């Protein structure tokens, strides 16, 4: 089963992204806590892309595809054509450094890496595809 959603790069659209993911996971036997964690990880990925690759330009679009591969394995793809930023190559800061430096960023990537099982980047048809896999 697959679901697709396309949105402009405005942070005001994040709420819609979260609702789309929650709705798509409904009826697939995913616990509230697991749904919450997945929604969070994808919100982080989309907001990162909107801010860093698209400077919150609402005329730029990103697409999200959800594929349910087996009863327990979910594949989430975020497709865009901005600058690719591979979070696997990003060394997330230590928590005590964040507190000390009073920094507000850097937590999102740590969340995504903790929640998702696999994060891959591909080029397909001139687009960037970030593929996140989660087995619940």
């Amino acid at each position, binding site marked *: 089963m697959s679901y697709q959603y396309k949105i402009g790069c405005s*942070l005001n659209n994040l709420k819609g992204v979260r609702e789309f993911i929650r709705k798509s996971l409904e009826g697939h036997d995913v616990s509230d*806590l697991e749904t919450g964690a997945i929604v969070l990880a994808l919100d982080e990925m989309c*907001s990162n892309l909107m801010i860093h690759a698209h400077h919150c330009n609402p005329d730029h679009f990103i697409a999200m595809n959800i594929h349910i591969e087996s009863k327990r394995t979910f594949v989430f793809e975020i497709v865009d054509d901005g600058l690719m930023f591979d979070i696997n190559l990003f060394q997330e800061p230590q928590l005590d450094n964040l507190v000390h430096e009073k920094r507000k960023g850097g937590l999102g990537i740590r969340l995504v890496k903790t929640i998702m099982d696999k994060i891959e980047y591909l080029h397909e048809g001139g687009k960037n595809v970030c593929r996140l896999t989660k087995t619940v």
Partner: protein
Amino acid sequence: MVHIKRLQEDGADIIAIVGEIDASSSIELDLAIAKSVGEGFKKIIVDCQALEYISSAGLGVFMSYIEELKDKGISFVLFGMKERVLNTFSILGLADLLNIRETKQEAKKLADELSV
């Protein structure tokens, strides 16, 4: 997206968050805490009973105040988090860096103890 209400009780500033905190709304939380600190409150309690969702942008706001609150001797306690919201704090280990209680009564008691 989010409404932030402030009220004062027994010398504590209570900041109630209603709705969702994400990258588009975390600034509201930041401003509310900045105001409370700026107005000189020594006890700040955050009411999370109606907080439905928080992303890293919101967590980052709390993190960024930890040092300043410590330096200024301000006691800062959160309470009333829903399980899925608390889970977000726990995934990052932030639940250990912040003072989190279940009820308002417990939060006020801890804020009193910390401000002695």
